[in-house]
């Protein structure tokens, strides 16, 4: 059974603005890869444990103390656009 892929929906979720022709190519490539990947469903039985850190580490906490951080100007120097110590972005919603 061919795997059903709504490629336009997936691209939207992934925030990728791709032309239709490219989406069609990706859909067929994903289909072939997923056909192969579907072999995970052939696993015999259930593992008795959850996949975990090989050394059994769990959570890591640190003291709630102020520590030095990166220099703001040096960080902002990498931004495509910044002003007065902030990143600049266009409006979140259409103005119309």
């Amino acid at each position: 059974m061919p795997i059903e892929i709504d490629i336009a929906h997936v691209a939207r979720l992934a925030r990728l603005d791709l032309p239709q022709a490219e989406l069609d190519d990706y859909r067929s490539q994903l289909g072939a890869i997923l056909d192969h990947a579907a072999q995970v469903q052939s696993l015999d039985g259930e593992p008795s444990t959850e996949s975990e850190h090989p050394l059994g580490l769990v959570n890591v906490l640190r003291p709630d103390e102020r520590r030095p951080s990166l220099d703001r100007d040096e960080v902002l120097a990498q931004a495509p656009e910044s002003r007065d110590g902030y990143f600049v972005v266009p409006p979140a919603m259409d103005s119309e």
Partner: protein
Amino acid sequence: MTLHDLTIVEAGARLRSGETTSADLLAAVLDRASQTEAQIHAYLTIDRAGAAEAAAKADADFADGIDHGPLHGIPMALKDNMCTRGLETTASSQILAGYVPPYDATVTTRLRDAGAVLIGKTNLDEFAMGSSTENSAYGASYNPWDIGRVPGGSSGGSAAAVAVGSALGALGSDTGGSIRQPASLTGIVGMKPTYGTVSRYGLIAFASSLDQIGPLARSVDDAAVMLEAIWGHDPLDSTSYAGEYPDLHSGMGRDVRGLRVGVVKELSGEGYEPAVEEAVATMVERLAAEGAEIVEVSLPTFDIAMSAYYLIAPAEASANLARFDGIRFGHRAEGATTNALMARTRAEGFGPEVIRRILLGTYALSAGYYDAFYGQAQKVRAAVQEDLARTYKTVDVLVSPTSPTVAFVAGDRVDDPLAMYLSDICTIPMNLSGDPGISVPISLDHQNLPIGFHVMAPSLGESVLFRVAAEVERLAEFTAKPVLQEVAG
């Protein structure tokens, strides 16, 4: 022997005897880079000024009796997905063109502290996604053994640099085999340590539960001294291991008498080149002759490990690569709204393999498909770990080929993602389990292309891993070096 062909250990001895200087070593590898880069393209950035300064500092240190250990004064390279403060770091992506990190990765800091001379940044498949170093936005790298072939990937630039002599050692990152497979295809040693032992802070993330940094080197001993310099607990990486670390040198130089070596049945057969299988079988016989006990073992989950990997790695990548949105760093496209700007930036900035994996991972995590794909892949991952735990009750190490084939012809697998993915079939299980693995060159095939031998051990089993690897290296006596073809005209 010319300076650029020395191992780190040999170069270190010459530095300490006063026979050579760090500046001489640097000049030799830069000279070699000038001769070979047009054909090999191992580097994206060479930092001549920074390297010259570090070499001068190392020479001044030696004159003052200061010695930071085996990497002091040694010219080395870093894969371009490891952050270097003040030096462009792109992960071979257009989306990071011109990005100059405001901080050093922990491995960068550790190499600097060890007195290493950082030559520059090596080429990789974009965001380390690939097995051939052809997916670089800045052009492919080529294999010094045959410039019509790939050096493997994704750490192909690091592997090619070490193989050709434009670095004495280099770091790579291994998410599904990206250190071990290129090491195999270029005739050098490549090692992926136990997950959690080398800090990932400042490594541009691909799949965080699988990524691990490790050495690419000319000898097993070099790999060990590099690993000793970079590993250890780091509070900046929350997955970093804080317990006791293995002694790498405790077993090196000891024989393998009495060690139980498991030959993995699933990592052979269809798809494996006869020359590769023969070379591996010959080495197994030699280990047996040295007193190792050879056991054929079956790990049935290895047959579906690759399928699980190609769901888990893209799923993690789709989340990790969400940070590349044109807001804080890197490329930005025009857009009337934030959302339009991000979606345009990402479509323009990412190459096709990265887009393919983001789409694949997004799909595998999306509502309605999560249980059948990602959830099931995680169960396979746990089953691989259980399969290995069961097997390590009866053997000390596992062995296999590192790659089912020798270096393939450039362009051959570019249009067939699945064929490309199969390059990593032998290495992927160690990423799913988190266990260490190493590739050691053992011989050349009839086309003069190197074949690598893969040794695997349980997590924190680096002592026995290096013991077996050192013995494989001694038995193989692999001393061949690539001879670059002259370019016509």
